[in-house]
């Protein structure tokens, strides 16, 4: 039952996202370089109106009760990417288990691909080789996307701070929302980080990113 609800919420979120992308962009104007003049004028005209409608939708959605609905649906559909950089993934597995049950917060690893995911949990040490892959994964995800840095290594290098093969500054790869120190952090700590991230999403502007 909760899977169905979470899926509905997630698709609602994606619908808002789709509307924002479709209404907010003027791709149709750019791609018609070699068409006729009348078509260009028409598309300019259409582009202006699309822009106006987009502004209207932004005003309506970005303020008032719809904003809370959007943020609420995002809060309850935090799907993490399945990417493991190091040993903190054991604690991540314990957190995803039935004892703490993050599914009550809408967090579950049911995603089919990166483009349905919302959340990266950087699980531990990021080596220089893995940093490249992590960056690729982050760029493949659709916005809005959130990052939790889990463990001392992902926060500041940790145990391998002066090593030759480790990235100390994960925050230079992408912006990080919540840091969870600990080596490794307890599953409860990670769950509290998820709760903090939900608080952040709750107060977020819809068109912030």
């Amino acid at each position, binding site marked *: 039952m909760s899977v169905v609800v979470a899926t509905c919420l997630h698709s609602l979120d994606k619908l808002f996202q789709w509307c924002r992308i479709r209404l907010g962009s003027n791709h149709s104007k750019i791609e018609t370089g070699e068409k006729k003049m009348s078509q260009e004028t028409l598309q300019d005209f259409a582009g202006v109106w699309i822009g106006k409608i987009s502004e209207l939708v932004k005003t309506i959605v970005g303020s008032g009760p719809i904003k809370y609905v959007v943020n609420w649906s995002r809060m309850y559909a935090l799907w993490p990417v399945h990417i493991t950089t190091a040993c903190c993934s054991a604690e991540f597995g314990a957190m995803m288990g039935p004892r703490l049950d993050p599914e009550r917060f809408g967090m579950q690893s049911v995603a089919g691909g990166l483009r349905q995911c919302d959340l990266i949990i950087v699980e531990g040490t990021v080596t*220089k*080789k893995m940093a490249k892959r992590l960056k690729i994964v982050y760029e493949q995800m659709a916005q809005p996307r959130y990052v939790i840095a889990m463990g001392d290594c992902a926060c500041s*290098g940790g145990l391998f*701070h*002066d*090593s*030759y*093969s*480790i990235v*100390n500054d994960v925050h230079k790869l992408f912006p990080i929302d919540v840091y969870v120190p600990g080596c490794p952090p307890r599953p409860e700590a990670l769950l509290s980080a998820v709760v903090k991230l939900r608080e952040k999403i709750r107060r977020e502007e819809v068109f912030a990113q």
Partner: protein
Amino acid sequence: MTQATLSREEALVGQLKAQFPEAIKAAKIDRTHRITVVFEKDHLLNIAAFMRNKLGFDHVKGVAGVDFPTHKKIEVLYFAGSYSRPEVQDFIVILKTELPRDKPAIASVVTIWESAHYHERETFEMFGVEFEGHPDLRKLLTLDNWEGPPPMLKDVKFPEMGQR
């Protein structure tokens, strides 16, 4: 532990010492099925060939390096094991030798133990030990654009990383 349980280990050490009386400096039984042999580095190929042909140790499980900056030496360890001979299948014989730290070089055992190929490449990369006669001595694990000293030597520092 009684003497009877260590009889196979003692027989093995006795065989090695009888065969190479001047090459082997020390041979110690650590515990059941574990033997450490310290030898002179020039006799490595003879000892390896004897262990493979006569004693049945047909592969190495690993080649490791240990850096001793204060003693000015690098130790190279070969962990030899056996698949083919049932009476020594549980054994691991550690062959240990010392190299000078400023120019570490030793003969490659790839012609005798083929499984040492990647392990020697890794030891070359991490400790700078030259394995003479190795067919393909390239770096193995570090980044493609890696330049610098062997990173596992203890006095190597990386100023771009944080220092404690």
